[in-house]
């Protein structure tokens, strides 16, 4: 272990303070007894209790979960297909154009994506609701999935697929029983990415949501405009907690599996 110099120590603490002080403040105030957000009135968990009684928030949470699961699943299927074609089909006319167009939504301002989707839904006479948010989220998150999956596909040894064909698989069987299980980690992390993107999207959701389909970010945003309530702090703390746990589990499990693989390979070569 190298010792940190004072310069490194300072820059590290300033950087982390910058990143985490706002969240720490939010978490602390979620346990505030007082209704006034900026005045500390003692420790209490009552806002968590009230949150569970608040039907509007619970409904919004349900809508958000539904939208996130559906849209990320659609995005994963479409994004994986796109990655497969772009990596595998070699050179075809317009390949560069297609791969550019897949990645364009990554840098497109969300306001524009949201607005264009809104115009599309209006022009085809589609009532705005859960369906339209799902479609909108699937559209913008599939390019993230395709980036993640195609980087894995690029290093995939195609002789594995050829071996499967050679042993009697049809091309679909080869994909299903060899390719998919091997790229599964990338597909799953693509799904998780799409899921998180959908969870915290406010801009596109507010363009494409209808009256009956308020998502949690929309709900939080609109209630904050009427004044920050400790309930929102509590809700946000829960969300931070969920995300933190998910990230820790994901990184630990991949670390453990890499370590196990290294150990196995070492043992095998002894």
């Amino acid at each position: 272990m190298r010792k940190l110099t004072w310069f490194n120590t300072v820059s590290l603490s300033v950087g982390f303070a910058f990143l985490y002080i706002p969240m720490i403040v939010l978490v602390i105030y979620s346990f505030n007894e007082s209704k006034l957000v900026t005045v500390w009135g003692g420790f209490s968990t009552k806002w968590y209790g009230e949150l569970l009684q608040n039907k509007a928030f619970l409904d919004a949470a349900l809508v958000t979960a539904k939208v996130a699961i559906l849209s990320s699943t659609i995005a994963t299927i479409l994004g994986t297909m796109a990655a497969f074609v772009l990596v595998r089909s070699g050179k075809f006319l317009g390949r560069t154009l297609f791969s550019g167009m897949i990645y364009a939504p990554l840098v497109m301002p969300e306001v524009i994506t949201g607005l264009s989707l809104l115009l599309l839904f209006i022009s085809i006479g589609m009532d705005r609701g859960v369906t339209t948010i799902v479609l909108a989220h699937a559209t913008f998150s599939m390019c993230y999935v395709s980036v993640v999956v195609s980087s894995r596909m690029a290093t995939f040894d195609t002789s594995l697929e050829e071996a499967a064909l050679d042993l009697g698989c049809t091309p679909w069987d080869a994909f299903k029983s060899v390719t998919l299980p091997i790229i599964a980690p990338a597909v799953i992390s693509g799904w998780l990415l799409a899921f998180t993107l959908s969870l915290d999207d406010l801009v596109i959701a507010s363009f494409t949501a209808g009256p009956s389909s308020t998502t949690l970010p929309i709900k939080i945003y609109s209630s904050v405009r009427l004044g920050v309530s400790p309930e929102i702090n509590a809700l946000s703390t829960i969300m931070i907690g969920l995300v933190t746990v998910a990230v820790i589990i994901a990184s630990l499990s991949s670390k453990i599996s890499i370590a196990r693989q290294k150990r196995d390979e070492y043992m095998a070569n002894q």
Partner: protein
Amino acid sequence: MSDASPFAPWRDPNADPLINFSNVTKKYGNFTAINNVDLKIYPREFFALLGPSGCGKTTLMRMLAGFEDATQGTITIDGQDMQGIPANKRAVNMMFQSYALFPHLSVADNLAFGLKRSDMPKSEISGRVEEMLRLVQLTDFSKRKPHQLSGGQRQRVALARALAKAPKLLLLDEPLGALDKKLRQETQFELMDIQEKTGTTFVIVTHDQEEAMTVASRIAVMDHGKLIQVDTPDRVYEAPNSIYVADFIGDVNIIEGRISSIKTEESELIWAEGQRPIRAQTGAGLAKGQRGSFAIRPEKIAISNDEPTDVHNRVCGAIEDIAYLGNLSTYYVRLANGTLIKSQVPNDRRISRRSFTWNDNVWLSWTDTAGIVLAT
């Protein structure tokens, strides 16, 4: 082979080939990977496709596997035209250079993979897997995943998986390339053993001439998409049909000259003024008066202090360099006309008792049948 007549179906005009390439050409755009190849491979052969990288040997193999189609010509396997038949419908299996073991499946599941997709009844699959594990001596490893195996073990799993469906033809793409030298030599004999036990026809692709010589019943030497010579290892080594083959297989001395006499058995080549012509075997496509090249292996040249009088072919020169290889020494001898000749001699005495050293004048000699005259 213990029977009286050696295994040589290619000499029997009535033998049915398992594989028949006729006028096969394969083009990728403007690039011709395979150029008008005719080749017959017989059942139970261990056939080697040998050549430098890019010579088309892998393409030829992939056409047998069903991953590439011929642009022109026909390929038949067991009498059946293979055009348009996909890899999964062929009674051909392949062992891949990277082994291509499925990393998410155990050794046993890798072996069962092809069987589950065949018409073998479910109840027989585990028995067959056991049998294959015994064949490659991996019975204790059936539950391991590929990454828990050593390189040599992976190689054996790949071989067993390719053999599990009892294919008519097994293709091996540089099967030993990833192993270290010692393991490679052991595995070569294992491969030959398994080939004999199972009676499967093996076609191996390799760029390693020693490997091809060791395992194969016949070798096809390829260059630029063409077959240069198809013959048994000893014929390819001792009677190469071209300078390319002579040079590609093993080490060779080449002396250029003019052909002064041709008989079916023996030809003479004038190569330097004041020297007697070299006598050697007659190669293909020679004509009297034309230029030719004499090719001889270094180990067929004897080296001595005194002039040998009982052989016709003898020249004098000075030792310029000595490469000591332990079991052998190679002497580089410069002749009066500037030609450098390599002579390889087994070190059957200790090095301190060696009778020649640098700059010594020595005599090189070889018999009339030791070398061959080839068209230049």
